[in-house]
């Protein structure tokens, strides 16, 4: 890759700093592999069908993709002015003020941690049949989850972000398998004609649409990370937006296609019942019927590696959040420490792992279901939290640009972000009203009130903490939202 003509002749500094920088494919690869496409399709989509029984998911992926693309216009524009660009609370701090920023930080910690912990459930549940087939013993899911937990703990602390090349190979294999499964589904329709209804916008106006939107958002989580590479990219103004839009488009396309073809192969009328019966095995049983056991087994293995990659990625995201807050001293200073040997965010990583261990142990003791009660509930709780954060961030973008000097066009600073904010507020309203449908519990079940309220509690605690800091530690209060660039006081 050449980078000539972008710096004045003789400027060795710019040339040296620009060399070895990331381009669009590298950033997009990173984002997509963190999202773990196969874990979403085999895990989230099937469980979503099983729990909600609604068939409009394919069109929901397309709609959410479009909304996120609109959101990304203002988001990537504002990212260039942010110190800790990967974290939503940074945007909220600069748009809506520091108290709102701390509230958003608490909410983000809850959201990312619940997604990470949820993945232990699917990892365990999906590994059980595979190990049973290979070793002839049926292990409990939590034992496998504990092995994964130990690996995440070790890799998190040794700062082995899975090697980029390994991730790229896994991602390409995952997408190849997904498309192969899709093709097989297409040639083995359940009914005489293809089930087009799931792709019609009319499917969106079914009751329980809010549930679909949260499930779809969960599939996209990770797209917000492209902006982290701003300083690492060849041309931040071009690379980061392009990588973000590309990731959103690929995710939306692949998920919509696969979730639709799943219905084509099983039949819209049966999909919920089949998904309830086969759970995370649904697409692999289909694949075994269509193409034989070898392909299905390859799919199962990739499902597990994909889940693991996502698990490690969300672990690192949570640990970095805690680290940034520790550097700002919003959390105790100890969270801002790193391991000497590897430079991993030590305390954040350990804290996240403690939470993971606690959740696995509690679920094992209470005998709760790893797929629905851990993976699906945890995942949707996280997905809902991301929806809340996206909404608050979208509101923050135009406010920030209205108050601060910038050189961005109005479409990026006003029109697109305001439109995205309005749509996201509507989506959030739908999600809250349809939370019982999302969880598959009867209307009025306390769980449907308790889970979304957790974000309210997190936000209130964040606000209180911010006001405490403002009163008692004004120096720290001033540097909220600065990330690692915060000045130690």
């Amino acid at each position, binding site marked *: 890759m050449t980078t000539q003509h972008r710096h004045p002749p003789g400027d060795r*500094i710019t040339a040296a700093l620009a060399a070895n920088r990331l381009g669009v494919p590298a950033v997009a690869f*990173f984002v997509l592999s963190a999202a773990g496409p196969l874990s979403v399709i085999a895990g989230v989509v099937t469980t979503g069908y099983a729990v909600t029984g609604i068939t409009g998911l394919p069109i929901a992926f397309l709609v959410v993709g479009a909304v996120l693309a609109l959101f990304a216009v203002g988001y990537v524009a504002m990212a260039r002015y942010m110190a800790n660009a990967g974290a939503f609370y940074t945007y909220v701090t600069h748009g809506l003020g520091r108290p709102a920023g701390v509230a958003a930080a608490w909410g983000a910690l809850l959201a990312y941690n619940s997604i990470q912990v949820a993945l232990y459930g699917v990892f365990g549940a999906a590994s059980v049949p595979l190990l049973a087939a290979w070793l002839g013993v049926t292990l409990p899911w939590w034992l496998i989850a504990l092995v994964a937990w130990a690996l995440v703990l070790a890799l998190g602390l040794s700062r082995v*972000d899975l090697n*980029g090349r390994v991730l790229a190979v896994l991602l390409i294999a995952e997408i190849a398998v997904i498309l192969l499964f899709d093709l097989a589904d297409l040639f083995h329709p359940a009914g005489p004609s293809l089930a087009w209804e799931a792709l019609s916008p009319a499917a969106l106006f079914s009751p329980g649409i809010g549930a679909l939107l949260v499930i779809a958002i969960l599939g996209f989580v990770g797209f917000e990370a492209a902006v982290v*590479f701003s*300083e690492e990219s060849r041309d931040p103004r071009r690379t980061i937006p392009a990588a973000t839009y590309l990731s959103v488009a690929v995710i939306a396309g692949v998920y919509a296609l696969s979730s639709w073809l799943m219905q084509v192969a099983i039949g819209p009328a049966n999909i919920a019942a089949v998904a309830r019966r086969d759970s995370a095995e649904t697409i692999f049983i289909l694949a075994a019927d269509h193409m034989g056991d070898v392909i299905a087994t390859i799919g199962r293995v990739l499902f597990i590696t994909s889940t693991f990659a996502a698990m490690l990625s969300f672990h690192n995201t949570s640990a970095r959040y805690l680290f940034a807050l520790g550097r700002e001293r919003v959390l105790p200073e100890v969270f801002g420490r790193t391991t000497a040997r590897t*430079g*991993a965010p030590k305390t954040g990583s350990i804290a996240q792992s403690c939470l993971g261990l606690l959740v696995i142990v509690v679920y094992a003791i209470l005998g709760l279901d790893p797929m629905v009660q851990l993976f699906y509930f945890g995942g949707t709780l996280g997905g809902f939290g991301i929806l809340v954060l996206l909404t608050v961030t979208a509101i923050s973008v135009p406010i920030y640009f209205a108050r601060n000097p910038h050189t961005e066009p109005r479409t990026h600073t006003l029109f697109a972000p305001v439109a995205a904010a309005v749509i996201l507020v509507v989506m959030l309203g739908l999600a809250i009203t349809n939370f019982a449908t999302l969880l598959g519990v009867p209307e009025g079940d306390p769980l449907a009130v308790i889970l979304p309220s957790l974000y309210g509690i997190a936000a209130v605690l964040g606000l209180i903490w911010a006001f405490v800091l403002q009163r008692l530690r004004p120096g720290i209060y001033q540097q909220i939202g600065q990330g*690692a660039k*915060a000045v130690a006081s």
Partner: protein
Amino acid sequence: MTSRPVLPLADDLFLVAWDVTISGQPRLHPHGIALALAGALLTELVFAGRLAVREEQLVVVGRGAVQDPLAASVLAELVAHPQHTSIPTWLAYMESQATTMVADRLISDGLLVREQPRLLRNRQPRYRYASRAVFGRAAWPPERLRGCLVAHRPVPDQDMMLLALVDACGLTPVLLNDPAMRRTGEAYLATVLRALPAPLSVLARQVRAAVGNAVLTYRTRRL
């Protein structure tokens, strides 16, 4: 305090950050060491009166020759690129070469030898003290700092900045590795760092920010 010839700041820092007496391995992740050494090389020019830190920017204030070839080459780069004055830019630029350049200076001064691993040649080399005659000098900097912190002895100017850089890159827990002396050592370190002159404090803070930022921007990952 010291009766030995004073080493340049970056050399001192290298000897704190690298276990040159036993394992020959770094005591801190290479990225943190490199950023701190880059900061130390800039500070050497500040000490030599060639460079100043004004409002968070680097300004060349004297172009007269400096004796040390490494310092001279850094100064030449700064003079050749007046359009770049931001400290983070210079830290990022110098980071890739800093460790090797400072090690080369220590080698040419006869303090260290470089051992390239025979297998896996692209792995990072080990650095050990060159001979028994220089063992004391090579092992001295971390002992000196530890002694100052634990016994609350007054700290000379150069060691003040050395401590600031050590702390900025995350080496303090390595230096105060004995839990019994950590608390008192850290308290005294905080006192010492408060006395650091403002321009040096800016440099150290920028090193801390760059090291922390590397944690948040996945700097270990390359596709």
